[in-house]
């Protein structure tokens, strides 16, 4: 039997008449990265809040680190660390004082860890400055460093890179990979398919409070339309002609979708083939699948929460 860090089944949560979670069940193996992928309003934060003992589910059962969430909440809290969507750092305290506060409150930490963490997260220089002067990326790093003070075995990261610039995002990814290398289990929520793809061992797609798909990145990608080229023609005649000569192509509304790996070689041969038949497209674009495509494919609707 595999070692499960998190096991949840039948989670439900509603606020007044609005159902946020509608029977969510998931299993996370210890020492892996599990990513909950979904658009805004899908219920990601609510799931994290429930799993981290912050709010109570209306129904369902959860075990985190082997402890029952409702009857052994204290033991769960001792095993987890949470970095929420908005960096929860004390702005009036310096980076060092923020970490020291966590050390003072934590039972597991050792005194050395403040200096180590500052160094590890490249915050040594800013250690004596108040957190209110930190950039977004620095705050996230400080927030995560504060989470690590108690040496948690399971870490919840709620959209850790939303709002970060690409460079800070990559730094955060490196940090997350290092954590897993140390044997920590990561529960990560994200809006970005790329992020889940880069980091996660398993991905679950959450939509309007339900899990609509679960699997490895490769498994999910097989279920969604791959990279393709879109061609738009001036006339329907040309569109039909192009559809006949390009194998695997499909007509969609007023454009032609041609499967492709997006590489220069295959693109050149595609263009050569059009030339051969004296066809020219008015518009040409390469599409790589993004979260919108995943959603469209898995749920049949776009990522925007539709007005009911």
């Amino acid at each position: 039997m595999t070692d499960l860090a998190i096991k949840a089944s039948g989670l439900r949560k509603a606020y007044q008449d609005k159902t946020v979670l509608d029977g969510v069940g998931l299993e996370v193996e210890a020492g892996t990265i599990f990513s909950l992928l979904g658009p805004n309003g899908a219920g990601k934060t609510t799931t994290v809040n429930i799993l981290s003992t912050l709010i109570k589910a209306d129904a369902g059962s959860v075990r985190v680190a082997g402890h029952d969430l409702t009857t052994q909440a204290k033991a769960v809290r001792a095993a987890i660390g949470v970095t929420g969507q908005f960096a929860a750092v004390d702005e009036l305290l310096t980076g060092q004082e923020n970490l020291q506060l966590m050390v003072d409150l934590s039972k597991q930490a050792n005194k050395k860890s403040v200096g180590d963490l500052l160094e590890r997260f490249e915050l040594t220089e800013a250690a004596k400055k108040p957190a209110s002067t930190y950039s977004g990326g620095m705050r996230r790093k400080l927030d995560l460093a504060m989470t690590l003070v108690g040496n948690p075995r399971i870490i919840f990261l709620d959209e850790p890179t939303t709002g970060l610039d690409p460079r800070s995002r990559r730094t955060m990814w490196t940090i997350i990979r290092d954590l897993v290398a140390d044997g920590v289990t990561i529960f990560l929520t994200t809006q970005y398919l790329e992020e889940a793809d880069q980091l996660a061992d398993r991905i679950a797609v959450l939509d309007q409070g339900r899990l609509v798909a679960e699997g490895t990145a490769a498994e999910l990608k097989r279920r969604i339309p791959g990279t393709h080229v879109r061609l738009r023609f001036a006339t329907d005649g040309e569109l039909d002609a192009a559809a006949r000569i390009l194998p695997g192509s499909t007509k969609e509304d007023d454009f032609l979708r041609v499967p492709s790996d997006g590489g220069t070689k295959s693109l050149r041969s595609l263009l050569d083939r059009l030339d051969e038949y004296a066809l020219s497209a008015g518009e040409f674009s390469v599409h790589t699948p993004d979260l919108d495509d995943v959603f469209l494919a898995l749920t049949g609707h776009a990522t925007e929460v539709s007005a009911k």
Partner: protein
Amino acid sequence: MNSIVMLRRNFKHIARNPVSVFNAVLMPIVVMLMFVYMFGDAFSVGVDYVDYATPGLMLLAVCYGLGATATAVNSDMTKGIINRFKVMDVSRGAVLTGHVVASVLTNLVAIAALLGVAFLLGFSPSAGFLDWLGAAGLVVLLGFATGWLTIALGLAAKTPETAGLASVPLVMLPFFSSAIVPADKMGPGLKQFAEYQPFTPIIETLRGLLNGSPATGTLLAALGWCAGIAVVGYLWASSTFKKRA
């Protein structure tokens, strides 16, 4: 002890952002100078006005301190700090206890400063040591009770601005009590309100203690109101703290 750690954090906040405490200490003194020094001779209350007004202004000083507490609690709530503490294996009440104790200590500093100015203006209480002790105890109890109520307001408010606003009635209430002028000099309606609102028996008790002649009736009413406010504030704060994420 988690509460001590939290209290130390509150003190650091006050040291870094002293404006809010300045406000809590200076405003009651400004009000005192205004009423005692400026209008004092115009009020006829039977005794020297500074002796009449000081006990009421002590209560006002407690209330002025609450605005800062409400704002501080709310900013902890809305910025996710409280959630951070809630998911840690620490005593759940510690962060709120820290705020209450910081709030009461701020009150005591403000009252000490106020009394200093009162003595400069000729305040001459006839209280004995035990009376002073009783007055101090009542002030701490009042600060504790209104502190919990303010923390509940701070936790429930959506933004720090609304939290600050929510504490305004507490700041205004002393003016509609016997703090500045005796209730029986007020117009009908307001007079009854002033007589029966919670702050009046508390002020009358303080006044009695500082005159060296405390009355049991107002003392019991004062203790009852403080206990009631403390219980309501504490229960409201605890349930909001548990529910809101």
